[in-house]
């Protein structure tokens, strides 16, 4: 089978790419291992909601049109949203088709699937940025009585054994799971490394509204001092709840969650924590302060001081005097560990020499380096700070399809608005 462009993955990013490919009259097919929005259907815990508000759910040619713009979609609503978008884009879709390998083939690519082989001039990888949960190697040292879960395996608190739970990692997944599990009567200890602290709302507006308005979300990958570092910044401590509550470490402490330092090893049935908790919290508090300063300056320079809420500053993160460095899992009643230690994309089926020594894809804003015609979308800070958000996909898709169109001799898509 032959086509100009194979798009791997039919989530919102693959569909946005398809939207622009169609606008440029570029012949293409979307290959999807499951159904549209597969990861949202199969790899998320039950209570999860988007951490972006509904008004921010916008993709090229389609946007949230419900009656709760300040709400947050649950997974059923996300799947419905993406299904509606798929009906609008109406791509040539090959569902339930797993890509087994992508190889170079002359000037183009051979895409081998479990349902046949495709030959394409160009390939766009839209397979998501969170395919494989990262779990530290010392997880293997956990004693046998401890059950461990990744966020992809976690479904709901009642599916966990009774008793104490150690949640490792305090980014978006970790703080959300910690709160839910602790609320179920299973006391949670939360191991905290580097994290990004954010209030849900600031001066009366959603914090992500400010990120949009101030231009922070539009900062480009080629205008950032250290893009490698920016791409590794963990997801902010946000939760999408109807009450628009803030879920920072102080909120968790108030609920009774115990904070400990970064988990650095397991030895003889004991978890070992770094003594750096105070430093990690101070770094996050200072970084939050700089973000709020940026917002306040923007408000001032735009003459909006009377039109939004008053300036706020949040109490420093409370850290107990001497957080424990060692936790005996048996004596501490810990029967479960949840590894909320991040995710990484899976490129294991990409048989093109474009991965660095750590297996990371080498690319320039999604244009894969050293392999013309190969593109990636949907990674953290791919082209802009907002790249990993649903509403950040559109601009990236337009840019990348523009580049791709030039390569195949097609007209680039018009930039919206």
């Amino acid at each position, binding site marked *: 089978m032959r086509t100009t462009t194979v798009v791997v993955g039919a989530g919102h990013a693959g569909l946005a790419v398809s939207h622009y490919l169609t606008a440029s009259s570029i012949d293409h097919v979307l290959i999807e291992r499951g159904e549209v929005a597969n990861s949202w259907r199969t790899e998320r815990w039950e209570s999860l909601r988007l951490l972006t508000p509904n008004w921010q759910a916008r993709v090229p040619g389609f946007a949230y049109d419900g009656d709760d713009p300040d709400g947050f979609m649950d997974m059923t609503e996300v799947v419905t949203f993406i299904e509606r978008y798929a009906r609008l884009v109406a791509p040539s879709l090959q569902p339930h088709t797993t890509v087994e390998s992508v190889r170079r083939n002359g000037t183009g690519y051979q895409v081998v699937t479990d349902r046949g082989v495709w030959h394409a001039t160009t390939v766009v990888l839209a397979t998501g940025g969170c395919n494989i949960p990262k779990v530290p190697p010392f997880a293997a040292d956990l004693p046998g009585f401890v059950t461990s879960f990744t966020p992809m395996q976690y479904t709901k608190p009642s599916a966990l054994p009774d008793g104490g739970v150690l949640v490792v990692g305090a980014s978006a997944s970790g703080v959300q799971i910690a709160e839910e599990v602790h609320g179920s009567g299973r006391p949670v200890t939360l191991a905290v490394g580097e994290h990004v602290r954010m209030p849900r709302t600031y001066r009366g507006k959603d914090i992500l509204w400010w990120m949009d308005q101030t231009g922070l979300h539009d900062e480009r990958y080629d205008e950032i001092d250290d893009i490698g570092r920016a791409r590794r910044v963990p997801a902010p401590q946000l939760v999408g709840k109807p009450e628009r509550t803030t879920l920072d470490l102080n909120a968790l402490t108030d609920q009774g969650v115990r904070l400990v330092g970064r988990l650095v*090893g397991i030895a003889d049935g004991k978890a070992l924590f770094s003594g*750096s908790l105070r430093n990690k919290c*101070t770094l996050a508090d200072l970084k939050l302060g700089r973000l709020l300063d940026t917002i306040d300056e923007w408000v001032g320079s735009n003459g909006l001081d009377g039109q939004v809420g008053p300036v706020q500053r949040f109490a420093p993160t409370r850290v107990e005097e*001497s957080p424990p460095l060692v936790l005996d899992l048996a004596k501490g009643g810990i029967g479960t560990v949840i590894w909320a230690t991040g995710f990484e994309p899976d490129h294991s089926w990409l048989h093109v020499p474009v991965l660095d020594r750590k297996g990371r894809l080498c690319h320039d804003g999604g244009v894969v380096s050293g392999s013309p015609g190969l593109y990636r979308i949907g990674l953290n800070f791919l082209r802009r700070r907002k790249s990993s958000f649903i509403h950040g996909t559109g601009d990236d898709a337009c840019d990348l399809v523009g580049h791709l169109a030039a390569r195949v001799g097609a007209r680039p898509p018009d930039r919206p608005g």
Partner: protein
Amino acid sequence: MTTTSEKPAENGVNVEALLNARDALGETPEAGKFMWRATNEWLHGTHSRSSVTGYFGLGEEHPHKSTFGFESDHPLVFAAEDNAATPVEIVLVGLASCLTAGVAAVAQNRDIQLRSVKATVEGDMDIQGILGADPDVRNGFSGIRVKYDIDADATPDEIEALVAQSQKRSAVFDILTNPTNVTVVVG
């Protein structure tokens, strides 16, 4: 607004060389593998002398400009001769030296002129641990506090950020806050 200083900050740290080295290591990560060494010889009682003569890094051996010597002893209250600082005090010295170097380097990189940087370090220890009197008391410090007094052309928040970033990039801070495998053999 008055302009206090137009000229770039000069703290005596060659930040450009450090940033170039970081870029070069991206190409040749092997060169980043260093081995630091010290030798130590018992003198008498709890008194000993250590020497630092050279190190391995960037793929080869490097001698220091001269051999540096360090003596250590235990204090009179331990019924020792107090000929030199205790080993744990030398650890505090190492932490403060590392953090101060970091403050200077970060300040240089952020174009902040330092005028004075002073640190006071305190380490708490319950000697029931090292005496084996109570197995629930650890041998090492139960806590370390460092207080910085910094005079610089910067806001209090910027100075706070210098000190926070210095901890983030400090080898000795990492050594003290994270468990490390230590192997001791008899030759």
